[in-house]
């Protein structure tokens, strides 16, 4: 069975083992919310079964015209969100360095003042009536994606007495297998708050943190309109099935 709309054979190999030293551990006490929400017992490890290898397909047809434009997708006609206009673009790869097409990317963020449109957010910075804060897109054949938004503001949060989140955009990444499911956050090059953040600090490896920092990309800006940041994302790679035993007879 070929993948929908292409003549590629679907890949069915198991995913590479996740490097749990590279990810933040469950228990990161400087991020207080993790203390009572972190499993403490050993995980049950096993090679992927069909339940982890498979995953749903999201077609480009589900996307609305403004889904990848946060400047306009919540704004009144003729108006737009307030803030530093930016384009965020990049590619989704897997660990083998292959671009991954058909990945559903969903993003959400605070407005330019650092305020979320959510009833649980009581920060005194005002809401922007023209900014909702969500968007989505699906990667193209080479794994590429892009969207427009405003740069989110940093904001204080109740953790330590004076903790601030660096400016960030949340990304939900839906690859081909359910075992690739990932949520992460994108930070901005040069933001000094990155290195003071208890959530970022849950990641112990500096190189891993740097993998979440988008670079200013002057070659992708639109003059007199928007700056641009490049943010690549990497999903788990998968083994070749060439040498795998397939006793179920595929």
């Amino acid at each position: 069975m070929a993948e929908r709309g292409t003549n590629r054979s679907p890949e069915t190999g198991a995913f590479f083992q996740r490097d749990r030293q590279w990810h933040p551990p469950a228990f990161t006490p400087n991020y207080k919310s993790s203390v009572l929400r972190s499993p403490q017992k050993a995980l049950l490890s096993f090679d992927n079964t069909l339940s982890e290898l498979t995953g749903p397909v999201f077609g480009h047809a589900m996307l609305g015209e403004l889904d990848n434009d946060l400047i306009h997708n919540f704004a009144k006609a003729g108006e737009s969100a307030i803030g530093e206009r930016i384009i965020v673009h990049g590619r989704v790869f897997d660990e083998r360095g292959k671009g991954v097409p058909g990945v559903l990317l969903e993003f959400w963020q605070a407005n330019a003042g650092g305020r979320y449109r959510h009833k649980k957010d009581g920060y005194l910075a005002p809401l922007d009536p023209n900014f909702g804060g969500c968007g989505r897109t699906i990667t193209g054949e080479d794994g590429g994606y892009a969207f427009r938004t405003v740069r989110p503001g940093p904001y204080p949060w109740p953790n330590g007495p004076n903790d601030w989140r660096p400016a960030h955009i949340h990304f939900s990444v839906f690859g081909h297998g359910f075992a690739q499911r990932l949520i992460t956050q994108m930070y901005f090059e040069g933001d000094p708050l990155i290195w003071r953040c208890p959530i970022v600090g849950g990641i112990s490896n500096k190189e891993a943190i740097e993998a979440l920092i988008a670079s200013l990309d002057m070659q992708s800006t639109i003059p007199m309109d928007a700056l641009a940041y490049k943010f690549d994302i990497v999903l788990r790679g998968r083994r070749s099935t060439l040498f795998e035993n397939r006793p179920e007879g595929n």
Partner: protein
Amino acid sequence: MAQSLDRLKESPSQTAGPYVHIGLTPNFCGIGGVYASDLGSTMLNGETRGERIELRIRVLDGTGTPLKDALIEIWQADAAGFYNSPAELRGTADPNFLGWGRQPTDMETGVCLFRTIKPGRVPFRDGRLMAPHITLWIVARGINLGLHTRLYFSDEEKANAEDPILARIEHRLRVPTLIAERQGDAYVFDIHLQGEKETVFFDS
């Protein structure tokens, strides 16, 4: 030095945070007009084959308090045991069932409700059948990397007894942490993040 393997590292995870709803269920949290509906909120239509069931899932922290800001995604086979996925090579799944759903926990009660069908059995890697199950992925504020586990069914005792994944659980008293209790047409399932009743989470 030997040759480089030229592999990339997976992007490190970061918590979904308290405002995950804005991105993944915007209509649920009052951001209307951007998407027609929240993705994954409806799993069934009139043509979907299989026994209608309801899942009532809660996620409890180390004090036993239900999380009210979590989000759960489920992934399952159709009633005949086929996944609606390009990587499903054994046959074609029910075209009226994607098998994927997404729901937030209720902001007052902490209950996460899915209306779906009972999945069929899917083979393990060696061809033995696994018991009917649903894969779960749980994210929330305070969870640094999405948690992966499964929901099995209390009225599938025989299948559960021969399930190759359940069989791998060394401490047998933890097996029930993966089994949802049938109550009428519903299955009730509590996920314990910590403590004596900590759910068995997976690394797969």
